[in-house]
């Protein structure tokens, strides 16, 4: 299908030039650096990167849950439809949460209330945001648990989080997030704490819900395989910046940014015989630091230019307008 920007629907969510700084005794650390992207209805965006690259901070910024002491740059915008969520008072923001944008967290045990039954937690959201009567909300909670594949939902609704397995808890968290029919679902590493078989089932559920309800979904993960297989589009983050954004089907086959290329090469593949050497990236992912100029990947890059140290490469599209990358000396070539 040919891409034409005029035909693209108006985005549900549009992030513009989002930078976030954390004030510490080491100075103002830049945890997000000029992040921009948009998400349209019915599409999913995978955000991948190694720990400390700013994935979680980005999720929190979108839903107004940044830690105290975090400073957002002045020219940043987080547009949800026609509303800029940045600078919105807490009261107004609460109207957007759950109804407009909902979130599923990495660890369901710590995001669920341990002294409240699963059913009541879901019902609470409905009473709060949908002004439902408690009785109706409880009935709806059981329906939701059924919809996310919880067996014996009536019995489970009366149970507490500690009585459930990790996969079951994550289903409860998903049911709570979906309870008010959000337009955007942000899932922050929803399967990292789960076994591979359970991971499959939870991702199947998320994708099915996203398709059925035509939500926009942001799936944050450190696993490039999941992003490639489970999303429409992938944004790769490094040191607080998006360094490459591309259609998911290109992720394992045609990338331009050397960091993405090296990451893909570092993943153990199925088609290689045992003991085949992996290509590795020397060094470690950088910790958040005071903002500097130049490409953050420069010290680990195997094809650096003089320019890479001096000038920060902008995130720009190549011939394919759907494929943006931030590199002065990209790998590979133009093409599908």
């Amino acid at each position: 299908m040919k891409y034409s920007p005029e035909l693209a629907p108006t985005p549900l969510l549009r992030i513009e030039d989002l930078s976030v700084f954390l004030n510490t005794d080491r100075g103002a650390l830049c945890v997000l650096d000029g992040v921009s992207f948009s998400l349209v209805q019915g599409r999913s965006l995978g955000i991948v990167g190694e720990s400390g690259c700013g994935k979680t901070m980005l999720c929190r910024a979108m839903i107004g849950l940044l830690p105290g002491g975090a400073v957002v740059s002045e020219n940043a915008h987080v547009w949800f439809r026609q509303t800029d969520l940045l600078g919105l008072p807490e009261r107004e923001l609460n109207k957007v949460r759950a109804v407009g944008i909902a979130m599923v967290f990495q660890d369901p045990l710590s995001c669920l209330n341990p002294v409240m039954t699963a059913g009541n937690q879901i019902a609470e959201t409905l009473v709060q945001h949908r002004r439902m009567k408690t009785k109706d909300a409880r009935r709806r909670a059981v329906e939701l648990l059924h919809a996310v594949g919880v067996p014996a939902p009536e019995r489970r609704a009366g149970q507490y989080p500690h009585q459930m397995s990790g996969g079951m808890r994550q289903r409860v968290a998903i049911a709570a997030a979906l309870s008010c029919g959000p337009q955007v679902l942000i899932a922050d590493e929803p399967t990292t704490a789960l076994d591979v078989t359970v991971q499959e089932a939870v991702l199947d559920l998320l994708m099915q819900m996203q398709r059925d309800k035509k939500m926009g979904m942001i799936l944050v993960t450190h696993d490039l395989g999941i992003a490639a297989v489970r999303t429409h589009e992938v944004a790769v983050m490094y040191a607080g910046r998006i360094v490459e954004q591309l259609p998911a089907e290109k992720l394992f086959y045609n990338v331009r940014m050397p960091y993405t290329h090296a990451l893909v090469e570092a993943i153990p593949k199925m088609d290689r015989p045992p003991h085949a050497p992996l290509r590795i990236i020397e060094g470690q992912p950088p910790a958040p630091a005071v903002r500097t100029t130049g490409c953050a990947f420069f010290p680990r890059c195997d094809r650096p230019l003089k320019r890479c140290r001096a000038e920060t490469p902008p995130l720009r599209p190549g011939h394919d307008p759907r494929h943006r990358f931030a590199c002065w000396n990209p790998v590979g070539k133009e093409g599908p």
Partner: protein
Amino acid sequence: MSASPSVLEIRNLKVTYKLGRRQQLVAVAGISFHIDRGETLGLVGESGCGKSSVARAIMQLPPPSYGNVLFFGEDLTRVDRKRLRQLRHRFQMIFQDSVSALNPRRKVGFSIAIALRATDRLPRKQRDRRAREMMSAVGLDPAQFNCRPHRLSGGQCQRIQIARALMTCPKLLVCDEPVSSLDVSVQAQILKLLEQLRTRHGLTILFISHDMAVVKNVCDRVAVMYLGKLCETAPTEALFAAPAHPYSTVLINAIPLPENISLRSDIRALAAEPPSPVDPPPGCRFHTRCPLSRTRCSEMEPPIETIGPGRQVACHFPLL
């Protein structure tokens, strides 16, 4: 016993834990396998299937409830404490959580060097020198000798653990999920380091992991475990080309990689999660989740049978 015994042979190993006064949890319910010299055996399965219990039983930390652990033909469960202490330096272990496996109050150099105090009676200066040499051999800066673990990253702590394990020149290395808490780029570094050290020191490795793609890349043979029992053991390439046990197929199908999606069969587990190991199902333990199960599976436990060169499977109706 054959003329050249395997480096490690496990016979009918059982590990049980007490749960309260009457109940007990059978984490490992009688498994047998062997690892030959220079071989890397992968042990895979979901969490709670008993992988780590097997590792600890091999290390005699604590000794298993039942069964034999033969290390070069010598039964570690039978030898006296003095002999076990003599043997210990020849089998070493790397733990999953590298940060908590190191003493936070000790300098990492000390943690590496102390391995030698138990075995060689070397003066301290020489021990420290050997520790520094080992640090650079595993890709660490010897200047970090005086650091404490909290100053180092997860990947560096994992290198410290590897250095510590290799100080005594072991023959067998038991790695319990050595890369599962690491980032992709660091995971690749550690896997590469383990491969280099394996060839340089002629190590025999038991590699425990839940990541099938990693196992495919580092192991010669794979043993698949489910609820305390072995389902299948097979040479790696043969297993991935054509798994014989439905559970192996389920695990392989769950690998989230683009090239895997197009190739996979449509065999998937019926329920996402395994039943509790406290009360395992009768008959074949996998029958409650097996898409191909028949009446016989719930009635009779399948014995483990040889079905090809180096291949064993415990299934009434194997896929081969």
